[in-house]
């Protein structure tokens, strides 16, 4: 495993020591004439929370969908645990996906299943043969982490937006991922609930020592959750730094976000 | 997991019920088409199968006993029908049973009827060829009907044409309206009267002849007394007198008719109408004229025969001479 010092794309940046769990180099992705990502570079260290900040439609969601293999990039590499995602076959990709959690913007809870079935789904689908008691214990534990053990037999439609987000988080957590990708985790939530969710995210990150890549345009989220912020403008990395560093920047493009 | 089990069992019931109905459907059809059970083959050969096809029913004395298996063309005039018959019918169908093609109802499917014959015969064996009977075929019946219809149509057309022609033809109406018609009738009447008069004279001549013969006058009077000849003569005479009577009645009819026509004309009614109206009269007239004609013909024939008979040749010659003599003083007057 390479260390942070060898990464050319991350010059003079104050970073935590640790392994590089994910490295994105020269990523290109376009839809027709619309160049969403062009020469995007990013590194993620173990235990680090990185927020990718950008306007709506700047290609943030495209970025993490490329990371999880839902979209095929036009060029560049996405190395997760040393494996280049675009080159992986189905089986290998599934192996990587077990270690990478994904919290969808719209939660993506299965409407036709109960909360329990929703949480069991990734366990069963990844061909993990576990006895029922162990599955139950994992479900209970994941729900306990988000504080919603009592909703285990309810349907997603019966829950509030904040609860759904937490259930979705619990479903992401049930496989104990090393990397969690958050797609706009606070969108559509009231500020108080959003704060609760962010708090939960930090709590979990500390508890499991996982790394997080958070896509957001919510400055509260950025301020609270980020160890490091990457600004995505025009498809590439415009600026990098801590929240405070960026806040003090004189660049007019960066300033827009803090007004 | 309980919920899953219940839904699975319901699904099972659902699918099995659907499949059972399908199997039942196919089985019933198969049974109807004799796919199951024991059957044997029989054959029959027709000149025309009238649209019979594989799958049509075969009936023995009206009972469903099998189906047509296939219809083969043997040659340009002979078609063989192979049927599958239930094996249990082997003990009933005999070799002389007659096969015919019929129709199920008026417009229904073709059926093959096997009719038992009253005469004794051994039972059929597999692949026997049964005798066939040609039946009244609906098509043929319809064709005959069509021909009849055409004929009727032709007749009707002709009738219509005739009526039209009569209606349109001035000539016919002229004839019918012709005022000279009564005169013609009268002339006819006179002719008939003179004919009658002639007949009467002939009869008297004949009677004279007969009496002369009876009295033995003439060279061969004895021979003539022969009874057979006398009988023939008698018949001739009676026939002649009948002619006379006919002529009389005819004369009467004609005079009535003439009178009627006269009356009609006088009363301003068309004679044609009277004739057309009085069909009985017309018929009588016709009949009388025919009778007269026949009678006269018969009489003439007899007279001719007598003239040529060598026995009377001399007598007739004498008679003619005398007539010549009688006529001369009359002309002289």
């Amino acid at each position, binding site marked *: 495993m390479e260390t942070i010092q060898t990464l050319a794309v991350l010059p003079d940046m104050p970073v935590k020591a640790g392994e590089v769990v994910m490295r994105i180099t020269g990523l290109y992705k376009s839809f*027709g004439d619309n160049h969403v990502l062009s020469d995007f570079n990013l590194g993620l260290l173990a235990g680090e929370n990185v927020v990718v900040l950008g306007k709506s439609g700047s290609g943030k969601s495209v970025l993490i*969908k490329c990371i*999880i*293999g*839902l979209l095929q990039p036009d060029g560049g590499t996405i190395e997760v645990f040393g494996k280049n995602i675009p080159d992986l076959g*189905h089986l290998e990709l*599934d192996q990587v*996906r*077990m270690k990478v959690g*994904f919290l*969808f*913007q*719209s*939660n*993506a*809870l*299965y*409407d*036709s299943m109960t909360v329990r079935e929703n949480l069991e*789904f*990734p366990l069963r*689908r*990844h*061909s993990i043969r576990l006895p029922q008691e162990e599955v139950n214990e994992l479900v209970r534990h994941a729900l306990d982490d988000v504080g919603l053990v009592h909703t285990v037999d309810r349907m997603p439609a019966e829950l509030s937006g904040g609860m759904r987000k937490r259930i979705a988080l619990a479903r992401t957590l049930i496989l104990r991922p090393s990397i969690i990708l958050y797609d706009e985790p606070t969108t559509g939530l009231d500020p108080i609930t959003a704060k609760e969710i962010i708090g939960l995210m930090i709590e979990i990150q500390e508890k499991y020592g996982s790394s997080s890549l958070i896509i957001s345009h919510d400055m509260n989220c950025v301020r609270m959750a980020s160890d490091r912020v990457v600004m995505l403008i025009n498809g590439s990395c415009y600026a990098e730094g801590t929240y405070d560093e960026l806040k003090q920047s004189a660049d007019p493009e960066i300033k827009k976000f803090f007004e | 997991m309980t919920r*899953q089990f219940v*839904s*699975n069992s*319901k*699904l099972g019931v*659902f*699918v099995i*019920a*659907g*499949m059972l*109905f*399908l199997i039942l*459907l*196919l089985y*019933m*059809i*198969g049974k*109807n*088409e004799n796919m199951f059970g024991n059957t044997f083959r029989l054959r029959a050969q027709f000149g025309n199968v009238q649209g019979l096809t594989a*799958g049509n029913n075969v009936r023995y004395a009206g009972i469903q006993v099998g189906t047509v298996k296939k219809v083969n063309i043997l040659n340009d005039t002979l078609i063989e029908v192979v049927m599958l018959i239930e094996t249990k019918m082997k003990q009933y169908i005999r070799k002389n049973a007659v096969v015919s093609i019929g129709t199920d*109802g008026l*417009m229904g499917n073709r059926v093959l009827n096997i009719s038992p014959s009253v005469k004794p015969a051994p039972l059929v064996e597999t692949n026997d060829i049964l005798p066939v009977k040609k039946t009244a075929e609906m098509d043929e019946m319809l064709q005959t009907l069509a021909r009849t219809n055409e004929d009727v149509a032709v007749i009707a057309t002709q009738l219509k044409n005739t009526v039209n022609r009569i209606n349109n033809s001035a000539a016919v109406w002229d004839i019918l309206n012709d005022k000279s018609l009564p005169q013609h009738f009268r002339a006819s009447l006179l002719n008939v009267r003179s004919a009658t008069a002639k007949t009467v004279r002939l009869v008297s001549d004949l009677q004279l002849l007969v009496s002369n013969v009876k009295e033995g006058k003439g060279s061969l009077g004895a021979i003539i007394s022969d009874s057979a000849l006398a009988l023939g003569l008698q018949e001739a005479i009676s026939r002649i007198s009948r002619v006379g009577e006919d002529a009389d009645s005819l004369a009467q009819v004609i005079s009535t008719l003439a009178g009627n026509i006269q009356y009609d004309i006088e009363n301003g009614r068309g004679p044609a109408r009277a004739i057309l109206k009085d069909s009985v009269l017309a018929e009588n007239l016709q009949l009388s004229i025919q009778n007269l004609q026949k009678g006269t013909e018969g009489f003439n024939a007899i007279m001719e025969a007598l003239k040529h008979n060598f026995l009377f040749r001399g007598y007739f010659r004498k008679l003619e001479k005398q007539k010549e003599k009688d006529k001369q003083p009359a002309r002289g007057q």
Partner: protein
Amino acid sequence: MMVNTQNWKQWLEEAGEMSRFTGRFFSQWFRPRYEVTEFFRQCFIVGYRSLPLVGLTGFIMGLVLTLQLRPSLIDYGVESQLPAMVGIAIVREVGPVITALIFAGKIGSSIGAELGSMKVTEQIDAMEVSGTNPFKYLVVTRVLATTLMLPVLVMLGDAISLYGSYLGVNIRGVTSFDLFWTQVFDNLSFGDVVPAFVKSFFFGFAVGMVGCFKGYHSHKGTEGVGRSANSAVVLSSILIFIIDLVAVQVTDILGLN
């Protein structure tokens, strides 16, 4: 993009996508992994749950067809042929087509809406992330379920229709069930049942395929979901008639009539 292109081009594009989608189904359905549990669940939903609706419409259809045909048959003096005629009509055409249309309305729209909403709420992506091939899990199971369940529904619908017809015959006349039954079956042949049964597989396939395609390619937003459901019903209904037309021609060519 779609708004500005001409209609026919859009239509051709959709036809092409649809063909590719269908091709994807054929290249995937027989390969592991087999989503057996989900398949049975879909069979239950698609088949068993549709039975009441199909049964009701089938019953009414049989009854109405009988009552409607009776006056005409009386005019021709062949009233006794009523069971035979209704039987053939139901088994050959009315049963499969009416059932398929009802099925398209109920199942086609629900598949379109379900997959559409799964698409727009990223549930399909979530499945893929959770180590599931969503195409197999969602599309293959549903298409197989509709393909296999519709013939079963058609058979049961036929049976219920015939029962409705039996009652219809007995409203004005008296016919024993045995006689009705015999008359219906005496006039049916394999050529009536088998093509009708076979074509109902195609109807089911079309309904499932169109529903899944429309849902899977749903546009963002709740309006997109509604449009998916709606166009799934419209397209699958049209396809049912087209398949029916083709089926008639094919059975005719094969000489199965």
